[in-house]
């Protein structure tokens, strides 16, 4: 048995092999691996005796799952109503243009993964951008781009996960 198998088996045991807990199990796999690698998904499907297509369906239905490794930094831009009223769409457009990255994707140099989310519930701070778990309030196009341009590139991805 490989380490990967062990990881999945431990997670399955954690939830008593209950298929109803499939989503939490996949969340745990993603928390360990940073994304959902194919080998782990195969192992999980075998252990739960469900078709791999079902896991794939779940992984692609919910926006928090990703099937590719993430970048060194995690950037989340709030696209909620209040942030929208205060200009988040223009900020998103500027980020897409400058870094050639789509929401849900990662920059070519793997510097950061970009996500647009529907409201982080911090409307008093709008527009909000979250970088590696830290909230930046009242951002605008220039301050957001500046923040991203200054992201440090060399550190290992593991140390960047916000606590």
């Amino acid at each position, binding site marked *: 048995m490989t380490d990967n198998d062990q990881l999945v088996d431990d997670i399955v045991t954690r939830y008593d092999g209950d*298929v*109803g*807990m*499939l*989503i*939490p199990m996949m*969340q745990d796999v993603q928390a360990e691996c940073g994304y959902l690698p194919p080998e782990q998904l195969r192992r999980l499907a075998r252990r739960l005796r469900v078709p791999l297509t*079902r896991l794939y*369906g*779940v992984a692609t*239905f*919910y*926006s*928090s*799952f990703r099937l590719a490794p993430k970048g060194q930094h995690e950037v989340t831009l709030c*696209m*909620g*109503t*209040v942030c*929208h*009223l205060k200009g988040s769409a*223009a900020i998103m457009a500027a980020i897409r243009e400058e870094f050639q990255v789509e929401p849900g994707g990662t920059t070519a140099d793997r510097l950061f993964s970009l996500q647009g*989310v*529907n*409201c*982080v*519930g*911090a*409307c*008093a*701070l*709008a527009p*909000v951008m979250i970088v590696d778990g830290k*909230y930046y*309030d009242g951002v*605008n*196009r*220039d301050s957001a781009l500046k923040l991203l341009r200054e992201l440090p590139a060399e550190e290992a991805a593991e140390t960047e996960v916000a606590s």
Partner: protein
Amino acid sequence: MTIAVKHLADPREMEAYRAVVKARRGAVAHTVRVCIGTGCAAKGSRRLFELFQEAAAESGADVEITNKCVGCHGFCERGPIVVIEPGDIFYQRVEEPDVAEIFRETVLGGRVVERLLYTDSATGAAATTEEDIPFYQAQQRIVLAANGLIDPRSIDDYLAIGGYSALSKALTAMQPEQIIAEVEKAGLRGRGGGGFPAARKWRSCRQAHGSPKYVICNGDEGDPGAFMDRSVMEGNPHSVLEGMIIGAYAIGSNQGYIYVRNEYPLAVEHLKVAIGQARELGLLGENILGSGFSFDIKITRGGGAFVCGESTALMASLEGRAGEPRAKYVHTVEHGLNDLPTNLNNVETWANVPAIVNRGGDWFAGIGTEKSKGTKVFSLVGNVVNTGLVEVPMGITLRRIVEEIGGGVQGGKAFKAVQTGGPSGGCIPAEHLDTRVDFDELTHLGSMMGSGGMIVMDENTCMVNVAKYFLGFLKDESCGKCTPCREGIAQMLYILDRITHGDGENGDLDRLEVLAGLLDGTALCALGKTSANPVLSTIRYFRREYEEHIREKRCPAKVCKGLFLYEIDAEACKGCGICKRNCPVSAISGERRQAHEIDQAVCTKCGTCLEKCPFSAILKV
């Protein structure tokens, strides 16, 4: 600070334990309460807490000082918030350098630091406590009563303010049917959006055949601009648990689930801690307080899908499947999770239950309007002076919420509309501001109560753009199972997109209304059925604005790119040349120190000049 924990075998032991906890609390001379709700935490309040801890450790004062992290006070606009006991002195916008002064002056010296108090901009009066602040004066807090008072990670704090006394009363002095009757008398309606009478749902589930039965707490708060449930889960998680345990006892269920939105990690953490503590004391698990009733709760984190706020989709998600809703003629109270009887209520609904059991259905029914009882929590956001979380009695007018509590529109601009009910709701214009907040009144206006998002929009908001925003949101979040929703929303969005780009055609409004009717009549779940509300309500109240977009190719709010022009105000322009250098298409010309000009034939209306001009000399016309 926790006292030796023991398993509480019966209500008498719980009261004895509570007395010990309260005695301990009474011995503390000073308490510093630092808000760690998301808004305050984002502004660095956790660091403030650490600084208070350091200050207390260093001072060596011979009095007992407790620093605690508390949940959201609601006045997010003024965060970080720090409250000092005794006196409940309310400090706002506290920064790191202020900690030493607060500690020295207020905690040790008992003096108020005037400059950190809230000052009413109209009267100039400083407010020392929460009660003195207009933002709180029109509010009535039941669900949020203990938010900001207690440490959400301490069950002792919750017990000290009388927590779990409703549970003890329910288990020892009430039969399940009596509890349901009390909730019925209270007139409690679901706070998640539908407004369905809670007692009727509970009774149907109790009477349904099948075992086991489940109770679910819906914490998948997905409406953008809404964070009521999060603040309750983060700030007072035990109130949600207590409500659920009482409900489970009334319904006859032994297993509960709380489904929390993925974006709310702090809520998950606090609920997990709360569940652990409740189990340890014997308030969850086998034979609760010696009553013979057993109940336990599991937490599931959502995967990030708006549709999972819909009850049947949420249950599909809990079964480990994609969150797709199903037709509602099969009732979830009979065939819900795993095809078994299931009762689902939202966070705020559950959190109202302990107060109803403790104080009686009549008391609760005494608040509010004829058909909408109790209070409702709203997240008041957008272009409003006081952004935050407010709890008001049902029946209060929208005007009082926006003007009295919210302090009116930001920057002295004119009010245009208030949007309620999230993406399924609608925009209510100024002429209806005196409408009373009530499930049915808001529905009559073409909006809805929803879960409690309330977004204030000023004169610079384009209502067509707002409708397009919500439809864009719903198009992304439509699960794709039924055709009307999947295709209908996309078509409506296509039409709105054309209108906001100046390509609107005569007949577009009719087409939108036909599609809206189709969705309402044929979509599978509420997400699809109500998806046209943002469009219909804006057409109803702002038809002229649509028509200007379509016929005159003009956006009166000057939001839709291409439907207005940029011009340079020759008097304000200093000829600095910044706009000229930054214009991506070289549409700006002018000599240094002379007023510049924009060549409208070349201008792409990108707005860069407006953003870059240091003298506000660029005008939208």
